[in-house]
């Protein structure tokens, strides 16, 4: 089953249950008492997921490591490499 089909499958199960409840195919006092909440549930779930997604992504953006030490180490090693290579007879092609 492709990922798309997994999503379609789960969503159709959800909406089948949803429509059955809203159109009162399934009778229950619980659903009658909470009909409004049940009706807006999909919108609420989408909004909640949106909040979760936005906060997760933003949290990860702000905690993304900047690694300045890695850049410094690389700059040092570039210098070291150039000197070592030139001492072995390597000629760099200067640009610009």
């Amino acid at each position, binding site marked *: 089953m*492709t*990922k*798309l089909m997994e999503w379609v499958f789960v969503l159709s199960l959800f909406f089948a249950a949803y429509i059955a409840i809203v159109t009162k195919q399934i009778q229950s006092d619980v659903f009658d008492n909470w009909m409004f909440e049940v009706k807006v549930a999909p919108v609420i779930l989408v909004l909640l997921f949106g909040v979760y*997604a936005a906060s*997760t*992504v933003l949290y*990860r*953006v702000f905690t*993304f*490591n*900047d*690694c*300045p030490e*890695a*850049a410094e*180490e*690389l*700059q040092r*090693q*570039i210098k070291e*490499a*150039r000197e*070592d*290579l030139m001492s*072995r*007879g*390597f*000629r*760099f*092609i200067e*640009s610009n």
Partner: protein
Amino acid sequence: MIPEIIFVNKQTEFLGWKYIVKTLTKSFDVVRSVKTMSQNIYSILLPTFNEKDNLPIIVWLLVKYLDQSQLNYEIIIIDDASPDGTLDVAKQLQKIYGEKKIVLRPREAKLGLGTAYIHGIKHASGNFIIIMDADLSHHPKFIPEFIELQKKENLDIVTGTRYLGDGGVFGWDFKRKLVSRGANFLSQLLLRPNCSDLTGSFRLYRKDVLQELVSRCVSKGYVFQMEMIVRARELNYTIGEIPITFVDRVYGQSKLGGTEIFQFAKNLLYLFATT
């Protein structure tokens, strides 16, 4: 087939041979694993296009770290007819380090990443292949860590990740980080690939695994990396991850524009619908 095995086991137990057979197989396994460990050869594929400034540095770093870890390796440089003289640089490096370590496999024109890997694999003598960018964004100091993890867990693929542990990126502004994290979140949600860095291109593969994956992949450019990992999940290959620091291009331009984002979205949906 199963009854036969049971029969053999009963036989050996009955004769008291079970212990001897077991010990012999065990010691044979040990000998074999020690032998293969020392015989592993790592082929590093470096596809280049206009990397005359970066190539000597990356090769120097590779030699430094791989010699330090006493590994058998070869560096395969696949230059796509760079107009800036990258191939001349590669030839000079070959003179310094020798033809065993530096292998040149230039091509006539700019033919893309996927075919560069195929071209490289064809000429690789190693049983493991390491792919990385030649623009110094991937540091060779992580390669011994990749190899250690591969050996420890007997993995098919080890991939570098910018998103876990001490991993990270140098030289990205807020917008770039946001796009990266957002794209990563979306692809994790839709594809669930068992890998935190889908678009990373610093990886170690078993040679046959890479061959299989490349032959199955259809996308081009950097989304190719994403497809490789998704196909790996499909084929149940085992994947390990090592946190890496990614230093964005020191020389030259880094690219992320509207077309890259569009390409990414298109391929994400394609993989979502087909895998």
